[in-house]
């Protein structure tokens, strides 16, 4: 069935292999594989494709597992990147074999979203995952991660970025996994469970994001850590909320090793977590580099939480940006007196926040404590430029009162602007 082509010679088939790979890598996997039927030259050009990506755009609706099998079987040579995301997997048969196969082909980037729909339990990752010694980037979602008890042969020597979403951990703590990845720079654990203690010993770590339940956290050896985000969910043993009641403050324990951080985000139950134990007036360390502080779920009526906030304020002389989201503590009494007293005290104890430029307050209710807090900030921030206030959506009538109050406060900074946003109006610029 040979057809004679018309005039014009074939320029593309004889380009060097790296260019062909470059071209094929820019095609969705379907089109890349389809080039195999173009001509004899092209029959197996796609088989050395270094990046195999099955994502939502590849639009493979049925027989996904069969297709992946076939592609991997025909593939030749090392595979730099393998991605399986955004596609509904109906079963997990074969994933073990794929991971084993990839581990033998020097995989560097592995992205697996194993959200098995319907009923059945989560998929447990095979131990062959730890044979992928060339990994630089690992992203997993929706599976069970079994950390082997011994750290022998555990780590990834080249791993720079680790992202785990919706993972259940089984086995020893994650500390040994982290410490066995010496080059780790970015660690993101989102929506995890099964961990009790988190010990971070990562000499090259730059960013860490934690959102899940744990009991203790400690940063041992993170000299380069710059960005920290901890969103703690309540850790429950047998249903009840358990917060470690140590004598030494959690605050010191948790934030102790973070000398060089520039950005700190704390949210959910983290503030409550940090507020247990004795809260010092001031932290032992001064965070000279911390520029941005984001505090979520601040319950203004809770004295302990507010003391933590002020404790932090005293230790961050170079703070430039402060964002706070308030939250109503639904169970606690609305006794504002202790908090007000405390804040009075702080007011008179001297200036801090000398470099604060931007303040954003969200979801506030217009309570007296909140207004006092704002008053405090305005009086103690000599170079403040912008203060944005976005109240909670239920606040309507109290809104104008709030504005009146705010206008009355004296401002230490001549440049200070107060911007009041209606609920939902605030845009996230700046």
């Amino acid at each position: 069935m040979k057809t004679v082509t018309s005039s014009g010679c074939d320029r593309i088939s004889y380009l060097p292999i790296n260019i062909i790979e470059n071209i094929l890598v820019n095609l969705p996997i379907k089109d890349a594989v389809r080039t195999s039927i173009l001509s004899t030259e092209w029959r197996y050009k796609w088989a050395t494709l270094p990046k195999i990506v099955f994502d939502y755009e590849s639009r493979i609706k049925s027989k996904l597992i069969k297709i992946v099998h076939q592609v991997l079987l025909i593939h030749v040579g090392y595979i730099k990147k393998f991605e399986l995301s955004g596609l509904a997997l109906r079963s997990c048969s074969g994933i073990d074999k794929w991971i084993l196969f990839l581990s033998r082909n020097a995989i560097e980037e592995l992205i697996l979203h194993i959200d098995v729909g319907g009923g059945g339990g989560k998929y447990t990752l095979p131990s062959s995952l730890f044979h992928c010694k060339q990994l630089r980037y690992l992203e997993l979602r929706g599976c069970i991660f079994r950390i082997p008890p011994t750290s022998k042969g555990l780590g990834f020597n080249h791993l720079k970025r680790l992202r785990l979403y919706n993972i259940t951990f089984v086995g020893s703590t994650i500390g040994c996994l982290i410490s066995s990845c010496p080059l780790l720079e970015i660690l993101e654990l989102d929506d995890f469970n099964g961990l009790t203690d988190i010990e971070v010993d990562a000499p090259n770590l730059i960013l860490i994001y934690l959102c899940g339940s744990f009991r203790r956290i400690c940063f041992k050896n993170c000299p380069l850590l710059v960005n920290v985000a901890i969103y703690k969910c309540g850790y429950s043993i047998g249903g009840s909320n358990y917060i470690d009641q140590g004598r030494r403050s959690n605050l010191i324990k948790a934030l102790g090793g973070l000398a060089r951080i520039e950005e700190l985000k704390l949210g959910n139950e983290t503030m409550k977590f940090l507020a247990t134990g004795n809260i010092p007036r001031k932290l032992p360390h001064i965070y000279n580099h911390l520029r941005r502080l984001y505090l979520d779920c601040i319950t203004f009526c809770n004295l302990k939480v507010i003391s933590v906030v002020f404790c932090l304020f005293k230790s961050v002389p170079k703070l430039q940006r402060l964002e706070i989201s308030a939250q109503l503590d639904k169970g606690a009494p609305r006794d504002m007196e202790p908090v007000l007293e405390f804040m009075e005290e702080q007011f008179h104890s001297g200036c801090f926040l000398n470099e604060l430029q931007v303040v954003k307050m969200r979801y506030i209710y217009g309570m007296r404590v909140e207004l006092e807090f704002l008053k405090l900030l305005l009086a103690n921030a000599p170079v403040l430029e912008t203060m944005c206030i976005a109240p909670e959506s239920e606040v309507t009538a109290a809104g104008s009162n709030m504005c009146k109050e705010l206008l009355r406060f004296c401002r230490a900074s001549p440049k200070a602007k107060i911007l009041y946003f209606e609920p939902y109006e605030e845009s996230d610029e700046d």
Partner: protein
Amino acid sequence: MSESEMAIIKPEVMKSYIWLQTADGSIQQVEEEVAMFCPMICREIIQTGMGSSKNYAISLPQRVNPSILSLILDYCRFHQVPGRSNKERKSFDEKFIRIDTKRLCELTSAADSLQLKPLVDLTSRALARMIEGKTPEEIRETFHLPDDLTEEEKLEPLRNTADDPRIRLLNRLYARKRKELKEREKLKNVEVEEEHVDERSVDDLLSFINGGDGDSKVPKTSKHKKKNRRRKDQAKDVSSDNDPADLSSVEPSPSKTSKIQEAAVDSLAAKVEFDDGDIDDELDPAMKEELDREVEDFARRLNSDWPERMQEILSSGQERRHAPISMNGNGSLRRYTGLERR
């Protein structure tokens, strides 16, 4: 004085040119900053100091011919200016790659040899866009690829191509064809098997007809047992193999063929002499009944493929390695074939 001054003046102060020589020998000069945008040329200048004059022109790799070189230099000239916005650069790139595919391929190749990665990426993406979403015929036409794969090779199941409805259809047709071929082969095997099967079973049948009214079924001796088992297995094989085969061609009326069968058996009866050491045993009536039933069953099964077997035997007249009885059986059968045909 002025000459020495001239000598001291560094070349960067004046607008300097670099001399480049393409594979075909032609030499051209180009502004230094433009040429330096190419990593390969840059390296050449720094490491070897070539390119400063016509005689010491930098020779470019073979894949770069003069017209492509001017294209590349246009690209470099635009992009080496630092002040351009991303938008400007993007729109320049879009226009730049609007050339015919032949030149685009040459451009890619040349950019690669000069290690100009941004241009390689740009042209690769452009070529990828020409391939994406097109049918194989369209792609072949765009790039003048020869259509030299056999149909078989094209349809080797790469399910990934199953989206194109034409390919799916062809796949299906081919799968069907393959299935048919397989079935036909299987049938052939079955028929060969049946021949063996049936030969032996005829013997068995004859043997126990000779040995009385169906009491040779009792498995007293091992030999007999084996025979029985074999028969049963063969019977099973026969029945199982028969199912997929074209039963349409086999529609014997049981009564007619059983008559023939009986007749055949009768004529053979005299010639058979089998060692059945257990014929003399007394059987209880129940067992006898069962045995009778089995014989009948067996006869029916034989009948169902009788005509085809006949044909096989007729057509392949060579296979006579069985017991003499088979020969005779065939001989007599032939007669009956004739009968049936009529």
